[in-house]
């Protein structure tokens, strides 16, 4: 099979909220997955239930696709706004699939290939409901791309379990047939089939759910909040089959304390939230820290501060994650860079939390958790080694035994006969309150020694940081900017510019030695992050002598690879 490396095509679908825009993107991603093509699906919608402009960008390729692209090869417009808002994105000779109702002034007919569908008419004729418009368009696209309709029908049936199943299937067929009949001349050949591997289409939230269960999470508790709530919905819907308990708490403070209680009693628990909820959890994170109760909190960042832009992405909660709660205690902060890492690192977080008896914060963002990506069927092996001890003697357990590593044996009430006492006041080895100077100092020192132990264990590991590519010019980033950066590297490479990319995953304890080593000799680095003050760049500054050039974006939208590539070229040129 001939394969052109790095062939990607981008399809933009837009319309009003309620028109099933985001769903169309997912259906299409699944369809391409079945055809052996990888995809990345970025979505954007306002914080409204109805009305307002929704769109999604699906980038398709015959190799892994790491992010959406800025310019579109195909536009599916369910309304005029879509056409108006995204005209600038359309490549020359772009394929337009539009509702015939849309007035055409905006569209220079000679620049584009246009498929106009008389949607209302078509649907009326078949007595199909208006909400299936999007499916007509998807059917039309399948026809133009020269595919058969069967796989698409399969996908549609799998997505619409019961409600409107037949209607959606009918609508898809309708679009397919109408297009074959009227627009066969516009048919084009799409990217060659890619892989034979089994591809799954997963959102970050879904990946986190899988990772959580593989890491032995037994209790999930949360208060709904965008963009973390899809995780709640998903886990709630599948709680029986996944053998977990899902509890919607009365607020985020309740949620995190339910999780802490569960861990104390031996069950792994997770709570997920976004900025406002995380801010509320600060006191309780300190409780886990001082009492050395394991805890995993997933912080899905959105654009703040305060309520801010609830449905838009951001990386502006890094500093709060690093210092969540008053006082000083060891904690781990990790930031997966993409959907695959979200899966693995959620499992890892559960393990680390129990191993080191610290709160672990998994920093993701709206861009990771609500994007969909085609990934290879993941390696499904559980990471579920337990780290507690069972003491059968009827004693008060030395829950806070002073050790060199700072890690004390972890026991669970009810397992064994020993009693486990835990205290939010400063305490001695048994958990009893102490105020005496020496006792206080040695317990504080014990706790803080864990930070060195964690650093020793993880600081040089793959969890700390990774590099990609090789070149004199270096990009450094953390979290979800990874995808657009990898795509930018593709773009740059095609222009002959090779880059090295350092992805920092572990943010606390900060893997300064590994970073220093990996960046040795490097004179300047471009730091890419989705915030306005360069929080990560400032952190890096403490440990790095290289010149730091910040590329920031803080309007709630993720980076596009084109933007990064452009900035790199600017930097290199000057």
């Amino acid at each position: 099979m001939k394969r052109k490396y790095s062939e990607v095509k981008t399809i933009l679908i837009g319309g009003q909220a309620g028109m099933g825009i985001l769903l169309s993107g997912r259906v299409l991603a699944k369809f391409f997955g079945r055809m052996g093509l990888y995809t990345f699906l970025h979505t954007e919608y306002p914080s409204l239930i109805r009305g307002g402009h929704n769109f999604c960008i699906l980038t398709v390729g015959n190799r892994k696709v790491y992010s959406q692209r800025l310019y579109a090869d195909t536009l599916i417009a369910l309304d005029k706004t879509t056409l108006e808002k995204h005209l600038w994105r359309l490549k020359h000779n772009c394929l337009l699939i539009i509702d015939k109702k849309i007035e055409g002034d905006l569209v220079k007919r000679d620049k584009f290939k246009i498929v106009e569908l008389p949607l209302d008419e078509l649907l009326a004729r078949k007595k199909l409901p208006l909400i299936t418009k999007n499916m007509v368009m998807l059917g039309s696209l399948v026809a133009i791309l020269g595919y058969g309709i069967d796989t698409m029908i399969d996908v549609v049936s799998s997505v619409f379990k019961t409600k409107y199943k037949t209607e959606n299937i009918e609508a898809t067929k309708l679009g397919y047939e109408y297009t074959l009949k009227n627009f066969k001349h516009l048919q084009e050949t799409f990217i060659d089939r890619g892989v034979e591997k089994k591809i799954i289409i997963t959102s970050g939230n879904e990946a986190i759910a899988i990772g959580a269960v593989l890491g032995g999470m037994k209790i999930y508790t949360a208060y709904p909040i965008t963009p973390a709530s899809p995780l709640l919905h998903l886990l709630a819907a599948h709680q029986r089959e996944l053998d977990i308990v899902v509890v919607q708490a009365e607020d985020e403070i309740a949620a995190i304390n339910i999780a802490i209680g569960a861990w104390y009693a031996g069950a792994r628990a997770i709570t997920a939230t976004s900025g406002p909820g995380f801010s509320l959890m600060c006191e309780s994170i300190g409780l886990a820290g001082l009492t050395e109760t394991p805890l995993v909190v997933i912080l899905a960042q959105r654009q703040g501060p305060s309520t801010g832009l609830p449905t838009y992405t951001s990386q502006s909660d890094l500093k709060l994650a690093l210092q969540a709660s008053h006082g000083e205690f060891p904690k781990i902060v990790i930031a997966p860079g993409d959907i695959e890492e979200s899966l693995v690192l959620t499992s890892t977080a559960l393990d680390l939390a129990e191993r080191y008896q610290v709160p672990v914060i998994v920093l993701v963002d709206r861009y990771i958790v609500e994007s969909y990506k085609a990934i290879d069927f993941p390696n499904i092996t559980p990471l579920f080694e337990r780290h507690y001890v069972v003491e059968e003697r009827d004693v008060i357990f030395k829950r806070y035994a002073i050790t060199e590593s700072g890690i004390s044996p972890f026991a669970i009430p009810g397992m064994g006969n020993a009693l486990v006492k835990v205290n939010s006041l400063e305490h001695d080895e048994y958990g009893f309150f102490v105020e005496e100077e020496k006792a206080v100092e040695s317990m504080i020192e014990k706790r803080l020694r864990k930070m060195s132990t964690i650093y020793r264990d993880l600081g040089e590991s793959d969890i700390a940081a990774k590099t990609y590519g090789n070149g004199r010019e270096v990009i450094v980033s953390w979290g979800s900017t990874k995808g657009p950066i990898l795509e930018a590297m593709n773009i740059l490479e095609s222009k002959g510019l090779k880059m090295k990319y350092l992805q920092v995953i572990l943010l606390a304890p900060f893997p300064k030695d590994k970073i220093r080593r990996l960046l040795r000799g490097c004179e300047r680095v471009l730091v890419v992050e989705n915030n306005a003050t360069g929080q990560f760049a400032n952190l890096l500054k403490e440990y790095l002598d290289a010149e730091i050039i910040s590329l920031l974006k803080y309007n709630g939208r993720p980076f596009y690879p084109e933007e990064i590539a452009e900035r790199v070229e600017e930097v290199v040129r000057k």
Partner: protein
Amino acid sequence: MSISRLRTHVKITWCPGCGNFAIMNAFIRAILELEFKIKDIVVITGIGCHGRLHEYLRLNSFHTIHGRVLPLAIGIKLANKDLLVIGFSGDGDAYAIGINHFIHAARRNVDIKYIVHNNMVFGLTRGQVSPTSPLGLKTKSTPEGNFVRPINPIALALIAGATFVARGFTGDIEHLTTVLKQALLHRGFAFIDILQPCVTFYNTLPMLRRKVYKLEESGHDISNFDEAMDRALESDKIPIGVFYKVRRPTFEEQIPQLKGKPMSFRDIEMERVLKFVGKLV
């Protein structure tokens, strides 16, 4: 077993005469008399004078932050439903900062016990007004007298849906022990508000002695909600004992996954995960 079996070596620092002593003693007696398995009991206490209780009890315990006893208790119970989970709070802990959790725990009917040391004042922080302080009470934060109507914890618990609602009084340990035993045996959310004097900041003992009477001696029907509510709203006299008790399915009983081994001790079943991932193809 004697009371000392359930005491640690830790010296008690409550003021002499404090109502907390009676609560502790009645609680220990109740536990001993009911012959619970010690290792399966978990006590959670909030921040306040009452909170020090955990230091004195030779039991599993979690002395948590102010106001969050109940969510913690719920987490413990969900993790291991075989534990007997008992939360202790002060009136500040329970009804000021923590009242949202109180309402929501009651409606969930999680099988936990909740014991509130109601001294009608903030003790540990040295005497400020509390949500149960009576009108007119002069405290450090209300030097001219409290003018906000006190809440009625019993009535709130009833309205919120608690399935066991009682009031105890530290002036009568026998009675208190009986009430505690009933609470401990109840399946579901069992709530006891215990009236206790704070001898240092607000000594309610004389007033309480004058006003209390026992529900069980007055022909009260604990299965009758309306009657319970009427009693809860009494103001001249203060009824103590059980106001209301009803058996309703607990939160845990309604979650099918919880049947069987406690969550804490379960393994991962791989087929389940594979099946879930399979859906994403």
